């Protein structure tokens, strides 16, 4: 039961968050786009900083209250593995204009062709990598 109730509640919260952003500011909550544009900020970046601050503040609050339940996991991997994964995620999300939040959470509900295509593609390649690693092990 818990195995799908918590993901569903979390997913609804993500929906509420991105709806709030679109309703209030008319912006798409694409985290890779928001984060990367802060690498070259301009004077319209204020809402991006406050969104990122909210993301961090939310993490800090939950980590201090429920770290044993919500953060009870390890990010396992050698340094080279972590670096390769990070580079691919960073480069790929810019080349493809979005990640799970922008294309998946915000693009699919708008039935944006590019987002549906991108989401299916990154999930397929994610499944492919995990399958290859499973076969090699």
């Amino acid at each position, binding site marked *: 039961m818990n195995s799908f109730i918590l993901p*569903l509640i979390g997913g609804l919260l993500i929906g509420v968050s991105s709806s709030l952003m679109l309703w209030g500011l*008319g*912006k798409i909550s694409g985290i890779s786009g928001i984060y990367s544009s802060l690498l070259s900020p301009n004077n319209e970046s204020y809402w991006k900083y406050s*969104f990122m601050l909210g993301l961090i503040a939310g993490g800090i609050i939950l980590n201090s209250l429920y770290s044993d339940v919500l953060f009870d996991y390890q*990010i396992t991997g050698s340094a080279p593995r972590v670096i390769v994964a*990070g580079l691919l*995620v960073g480069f790929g999300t810019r080349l493809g204009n979005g990640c799970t939040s922008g294309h998946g959470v915000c693009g699919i509900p708008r039935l944006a062709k590019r987002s549906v295509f991108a989401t299916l593609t990154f999930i397929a*390649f994610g499944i492919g990598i995990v399958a290859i690693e499973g076969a090699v092990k």
Partner: protein
Amino acid sequence: MKSIMISFLSGLIFAAGLSISGMTNPEKVIGFLDLFGNWDASLAFVMIGAISLNFFTFKKITQKKPLYSDSHSLPTKSNIDLKLFLGAALFGMGWGILGICPGPAIVNLVTLDSNAILFVISMTAGMSLFKILDKLKVV
């Protein structure tokens, strides 16, 4: 000021959604992507929850002007090209290697875990590399 409060609140709720749902947990994400192995379907419900809610709310919301802005800033591109495919493919590979996408990467920073920090540094480097190649018109 109000728009800053709204985007802060939106970030706060987004972080809660990511950690409550399990999206921040790389073991869960790898389990979801392990379709041909020991598949854990639970994270499919994150997408189902977020997308089905937004499907209704986005339609309503975009019929009127935003509260604190003159118009909605929505992506205008509509063509599927090689860049989109390659970008999504590379992102998917990185996601499958470690089980972390950009939102969870930022939230996981609060644990001060060394791999979480190394991942965000590398992700930032990947984004910067794209910016440089984009400026040079290589990509």
